[in-house]
C-alpha cells in the first residue's frame, strides 16, 4: 500500500504530464510526443490508484475486466471511425465523460465511507456540495452531448427546435437546480439527489435542442468545457489533484474554443446558446434577389480557368466533408502542382462542424499542413490569386458580411474570395447556407458556379486538366 503523500505526488506528476500533452499541440512536430506524455500520465494515475488501495483480491480482477471491456470498445472505435465522423465521435466521448462523472458521484453518494467522505446520510457538507456540482454538470454534459451527437449524426434534424416559453422554462429549471442542491445539502435526502440528477439530465437536453446544426462548433466546444468542470467537481470530492488539474485544463480549453468559434461567427456566446438562429432570419433577401443572373459552367470550363492560372486558393467547407471530397480534391491539386501552379488552402475558423475539422480532413488526404492557412494568414493573398476554388463552403465567403449592415451575418470575419480574378464555386444548387441568406458571391461577374456534387465535380476537373 502506497503512502498518501507518495500517491498525492504521483497524481501531481500525472497532472503535469497532462499539461505537457496539451502543450505539445502547439505544433504538429511536438504533438505526437505530447500525446505520449498524456498516455504516460494516465498510466501513472491508474497504477497509483490501484497501489494506494492495495486491494488485489477478486474485486481487482473485476475492475480489470471492466477496464478491458471499455478499452477494447474504445480502441475498436478509434481505429474504425472515419475522419469525417470526428465531430460525432467527440460529442459521443463527451457524453461518456459526463455519464462517468454522474456514476462516480452516485457511487460516492451511496458509499461515502469508501471515499472518506463520512457515512450515508451524514456526508461532509463540503464534499456533498462538490459532489452535487460534479453530478449536475456531468448530467448536463451527458444529455447535451447525446443531443449534439444525434444532430451531427443526422438521426435528429439539425434545425433548431424552439417552442414558446422555452427560455423561462430553462431559467426555472436552472434555478430549481440551485435550490435543490441547497436543500440536498441541508437534508442529505437521497430522494433530492435523484431529483437533482433527473432535472440536470432534462436541462442538458433542453439547452441543446434549440441550437442549429451549423452552430455545432460552439456546442461541442462548450460541452467539452462542461465535461472538464464536471471532472473538476468530482476531483474536489475525491481530493484528487490529477483530476482537479485536468478538470481545470479541459474546462478552460473548451471555454477558449467556444470563444474562438463565437468570434469566427461574430456572435456572442449567449446569442448562440439562446439558439434558434436561421429559423427567424429568412425575411427580405429571398424574393428580390432570386432573379439575378448567375454564370454556371462545367468541369471543362473550370479546368481551363485553372490551367491558365498561376496561383489557386482552395476554400473548403462542411460540404466537402459531406461529399467526402477531400481525397479527390488532393488529386486535383497534385495535377495542378505538376503544371507549376501554386496552390494553398484557406480555412475559416468555423468551417465544418467542429474546431479544426477541415484541417484533419485535409491531413487525412495527405495535404501537407504547411500548405494550409488560417483566415488571417491568407486573407490578403486572395487579391493576388488567379482562381479561388470554393468547395462546400458558403456563408464564410459571403461579401455581404462586409457590406450590408442589415445582414444577420454582418461583421462576421469572411474570406475575401471575391477579390480573386475568378471564383469557382462548387455547390449543388443556389440554395442559401445555414444562415438563410443569399450569397452575393454567386452573382458576381467573376464567379463561375459549378452545380454538382463536390466529389464528382473535382474528379471531372482532374480528368480535364
Amino acid at each position, binding site marked *: 500500500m502506497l503512502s498518501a503523500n507518495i500517491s498525492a505526488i504521483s*497524481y501531481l506528476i500525472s497532472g503535469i504530464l497532462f*499539461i505537457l500533452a496539451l*502543450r505539445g499541440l502547439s505544433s*504538429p512536430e511536438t*504533438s505526437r510526443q505530447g*500525446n505520449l506524455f*498524456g*498516455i504516460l*500520465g*494516465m498510466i501513472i*494515475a491508474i497504477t497509483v*490508484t490501484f497501489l494506494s488501495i492495495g486491494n488485489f*483480491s477478486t*474485486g481487482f480482477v*473485476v*475492475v480489470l475486466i*471492466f*477496464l478491458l*471491456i*471499455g*478499452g477494447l*470498445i*474504445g480502441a475498436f*472505435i*478509434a*481505429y474504425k*471511425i472515419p475522419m469525417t465522423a470526428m465531430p460525432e*465521435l467527440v460529442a459521443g*466521448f463527451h457524453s*461518456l*465523460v459526463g455519464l*462517468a*462523472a454522474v456514476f*462516480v458521484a*452516485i*457511487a460516492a453518494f*451511496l458509499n461515502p465511507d469508501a471515499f472518506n467522505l463520512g457515512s450515508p446520510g451524514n456526508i461532509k457538507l463540503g464534499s456533498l456540495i462538490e459532489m452535487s456540482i460534479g453530478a449536475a454538470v456531468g448530467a448536463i454534459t451527458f444529455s447535451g452531448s447525446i443531443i449534439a451527437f444525434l444532430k451531427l449524426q443526422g438521426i435528429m434534424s439539425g434545425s433548431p427546435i424552439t417552442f414558446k416559453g422555452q427560455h423561462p422554462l430553462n431559467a426555472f429549471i436552472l434555478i430549481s437546480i440551485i435550490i435543490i442542491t441547497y436543500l440536498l445539502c441541508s437534508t442529505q435526502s437521497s430522494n433530492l439527489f435523484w431529483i437533482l440528477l433527473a432535472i440536470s439530465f432534462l436541462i442538458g437536453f433542453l439547452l441543446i435542442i434549440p441550437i442549429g446544426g451549423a452552430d455545432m462548433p460552439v456546442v461541442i466546444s462548450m460541452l467539452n468545457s462542461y465535461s*472538464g468542470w464536471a*471532472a473538476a467537481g468530482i476531483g*474536489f470530492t*475525491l481530493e*484528487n*489533484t490529477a483530476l482537479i488539474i485536468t*478538470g481545470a*485544463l*479541459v474546462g*478552460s*480549453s*473548451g471555454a*477558449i*474554443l467556444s470563444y474562438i468559434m463565437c468570434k469566427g461567427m461574430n456572435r456572442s456566446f449567449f446569442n448562440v446558446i439562446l439558439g434558434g438562429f436561421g429559423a427567424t432570419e429568412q425575411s427580405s433577401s429571398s424574393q428580390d434577389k432570386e432573379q439575378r443572373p448567375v454564370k454556371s459552367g462545367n468541369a471543362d470550363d473550370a479546368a481551363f480557368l485553372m490551367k491558365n492560372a498561376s496561383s489557386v486558393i482552395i476554400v473548403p467547407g462542411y460540404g466537402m466533408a459531406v461529399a467526402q471530397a477531400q481525397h479527390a480534391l488532393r488529386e486535383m491539386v497534385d495535377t495542378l502542382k505538376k503544371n507549376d501552379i501554386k496552390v494553398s488552402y484557406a480555412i475559416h475558423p468555423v468551417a465544418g462542424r*467542429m*474546431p*479544426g*475539422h477541415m*484541417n*484533419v480532413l485535409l491531413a487525412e488526404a495527405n495535404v501537407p499542413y*504547411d500548405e*494550409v492557412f*488560417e483566415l488571417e494568414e491568407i486573407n490578403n493573398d486572395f487579391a493576388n490569386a488567379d482562381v479561388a476554388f470554393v468547395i462546400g463552403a458558403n456563408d464564410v465567403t459571403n461579401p455581404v458580411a462586409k457590406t450590408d449592415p442589415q445582414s444577420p451575418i454582418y461583421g462576421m470575419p469572411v474570406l475575401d474570395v471575391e477579390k480573386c480574378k475568378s471564383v469557382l464555386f462548387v455547390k449543388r444548387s443556389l440554395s442559401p447556407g445555414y444562415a438563410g441568406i443569399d450569397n452575393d458571391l454567386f452573382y458576381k461577374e467573376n464567379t463561375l458556379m459549378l452545380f454538382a456534387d463536390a466529389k464528382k465535380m473535382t474528379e471531372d476537373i482532374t480528368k480535364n486538366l
Partner: protein
Amino acid sequence: MEIDPFIFRLSIFVLSIFIGYYVVWSVTPSLHTPLMSVTNAISSVIIVGAIIAGLAGNSDTIFNTSSIFGFLAISLAAINIFGGFLVTQRMLAMYKKKKKDK
C-alpha cells in the same frame, strides 16, 4: 488558525485554469480537433474515482449498488481513455510537412 485543505485544492484549481488558458491559446488552430479528442481522453482520469468505488466492497460483497456504478463508470471512462488517445494518435500521425523536393 489552520487553513482548510480545501483552500489548497482550490489554489491548485485556479492556477490550473490559468495554465490551461495560456497553454490552450498556444495550440495551433489546425490542431483544434486533436485538442478536443485529447482533452476527452485526459478528463477520463475520472476513472480513478470509479476504481475507488469499484474496489470499495469486501471480497464477499464485490457487487453492491455503489460498486456497480463504479464498475460501469470504469468501462465508460476506459472507452474514452483508449478511444481518445488512440484516435488522437491516429490523427496526429496524418499531419505531415511538405516534402523537401517541392
